[in-house]
């Protein structure tokens, strides 16, 4: 029952494979599948919201032996967010993606990617998490290289090699954990790891996990692959990568460092330091760049720092701030790359020195684009504001004043970057750009395609406005998630017996 989103996406991908090279049918089907996927996501979310944590034991093997799928509030929230981003990107790519790319199976792979993500969010077994990670990265490799442009291939080499390394490290860490406890079920591990005598080895294992997930989520010393590769594929692909792939690393970190290695002070201190450096390097990097894709790529890194900061402080308030930020960030980052894609389609370039005059020529579109840009900065009452309030409040409680300084500095750098983008792209007097012969411009597109590109931005902007103005609901949700994460006894009880539900 819980695995329904995963199975559904698998069926969606497989059905789409039958329509190889029939891109018009694929477009319609993919949007329909994504909508159904969103409906399933909402249904599962409401079910878990009413009934609490639900568990499916695959093959009916009892908990520590078989693979458990666990739907707790955090997991289903992530599933819901991934289906929202999935729907937006699916609509956007139906409008904007070139036919060559669609013919080589963009949509089937895209649905397999979403399947991998949702599997990772719902699994309760650490080796199974590894398998879902691999599903995600192999799908992302294909999406990244699809089209085979020179810059794409160059970016892909860096992306592929570092992700392979991260997977190997993850596997090594799983090997250590299995050697220490003889179990792979995360709920079972949470109990058994506390009783392990060899604390040194447990710390080393958690360090390997930190490095492996750190490469995936692009934290400070391991982020160089991200700005080198994220701007190379088409914007629709970058959007799904930006919104969900780095956040998958954060999800895995939140899961392992609360459930398995909860409250390890040494790792907490390391994370706080890494967070500060990540914020600083991401923000400064974004200031230097001239290409919009790269600017937003560095901003991803900067905001990953905020997420790690909350995890590093490790209080209930800090985790709550992190979860709120995560919800806000997935929606806004996806939207941001869609915006940059739209700007690329309108003007044919992403270089902010050449762009200009957007506000004069497209006033309504510009107002729409202002929503994601300014909620990223966190101008109250937009969505980024609330998350930062909680992080700063948590920092005051734990007396991490230096970290607060970095969070404020990071927000300031973001403001600077966004103001620069806004000034250069929207307000600056636009020069007449030379039209490239081979590209299809926004003005030449059919009305349907134009709407297909604008609608997802409207949808995601609406959701981020809701996160901003309806913040009290999101706060209740994040509070529930953080209390579940900080006190894993409910999770453990649900998995290891007592409340088992079969599909």
């Amino acid at each position, binding site marked *: 029952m819980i695995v329904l989103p995963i199975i559904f996406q698998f069926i969606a991908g497989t059905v789409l494979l039958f329509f190889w090279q029939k891109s018009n049918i694929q477009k319609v089907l993919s949007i329909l599948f994504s909508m159904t996927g969103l409906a399933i996501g909402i249904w599962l979310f409401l079910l878990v919201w009413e009934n609490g944590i639900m568990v499916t034991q695959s093959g009916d093997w009892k908990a520590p032996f078989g693979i458990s799928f666990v739907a707790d509030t955090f997991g289903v929230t992530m599933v819901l967010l991934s289906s929202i981003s999935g729907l937006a990107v699916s609509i956007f790519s139906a409008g904007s993606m070139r036919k060559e790319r669609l013919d080589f199976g963009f949509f089937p792979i895209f649905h397999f990617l979403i399947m991998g993500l949702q599997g990772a969010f719902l699994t309760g077994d650490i080796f199974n998490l590894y*398998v879902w990670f691999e599903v995600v990265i*192999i799908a992302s490799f294909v999406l990244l290289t699809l089209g085979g442009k020179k810059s794409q291939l160059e970016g892909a080499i860096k992306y*592929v090699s570092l992700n392979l390394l991260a997977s190997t490290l993850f596997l090594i860490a*799983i090997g250590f954990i*299995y*050697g220490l406890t003889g179990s792979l079920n995360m709920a079972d591990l949470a109990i058994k790891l506390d009783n392990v005598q060899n604390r040194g080895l447990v710390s080393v294992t958690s360090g390997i996990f930190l490095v492996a997930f750190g490469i995936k989520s692009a934290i400070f010393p391991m982020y160089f692959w991200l700005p080198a590769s994220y701007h190379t594929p088409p914007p629709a692909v970058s959007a799904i990568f930006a919104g969900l792939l780095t956040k998958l690393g954060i999800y895995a970190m939140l899961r392992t460092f609360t459930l398995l290695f909860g409250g390890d002070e040494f790792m907490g201190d390391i994370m706080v330091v890494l967070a500060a450096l990540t914020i600083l390097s991401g923000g400064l990097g974004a200031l230097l760049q001239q290409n919009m894709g790269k600017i937003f790529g560095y901003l991803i890194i900067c905001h990953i720092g905020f997420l790690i900061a909350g995890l590093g402080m490790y209080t209930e308030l800090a985790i709550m701030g992190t979860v709120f930020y995560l919800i806000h960030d997935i929606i806004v980052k996806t939207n941001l790359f869609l915006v940059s894609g739209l700007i690329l389609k309108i003007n044919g370039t992403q270089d902010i020195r050449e762009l200009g005059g957007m506000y004069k020529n497209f006033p309504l579109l510009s107002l729409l684009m202002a929503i994601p840009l300014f909620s990223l900065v966190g101008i109250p009452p937009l969505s980024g504001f609330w998350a930062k309030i909680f992080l700063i409040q948590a920092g005051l409680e734990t007396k991490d004043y230096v970290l607060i300084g970095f969070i404020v500095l990071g927000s300031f750098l973001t403001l600077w970057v966004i103001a620069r983008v806004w000034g250069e792209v929207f307000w600056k007097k636009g020069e007449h750009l030379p039209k490239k012969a081979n590209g299809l411009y926004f003005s030449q597109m059919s009305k349907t395609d134009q709407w297909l590109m604008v609608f997802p931005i409207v949808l995601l902007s609406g959701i981020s406005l809701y996160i901003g103005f309806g913040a009290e609901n999101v706060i209740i949700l994040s509070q529930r998630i953080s209390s579940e994460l900080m006190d894993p006894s409910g999770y453990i009880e649900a998995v290891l017996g007592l409340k088992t539900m079969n599909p």
Partner: protein
Amino acid sequence: MEILLIIIIGLLHAGGLYMLLRRSMFKMIIGLILLGNGANLLIFLLGRLVKGKPPVMEDGMKVFADIYADPLPQALVLTAIVIGFGLQSFAIILIRRVYNVLNTDDLDDLNSTDEEI
């Protein structure tokens, strides 16, 4: 046997890391493959080695009377090998394609995406 495996795992990891740090793309992939094999052997070793005791119960028994070989690490290693094979073959094809398009095997030449344009 454990000592031998430990030495092999150490060598595989050391060799893998050394190859990863080279500038040639082809050697980088070889490094990743060596590292992956090292990780697989590590899981196998950490699941404890037991010789000649298959995890099969004798007739009429309900529980294992004696220590037995853990079948789970073998299943894990098998899964990891299959996944690793898929990823590595993708990486090799990618490198071949990059070599065709860019006509270089040197990682230091792949810096156009980092340049400020």
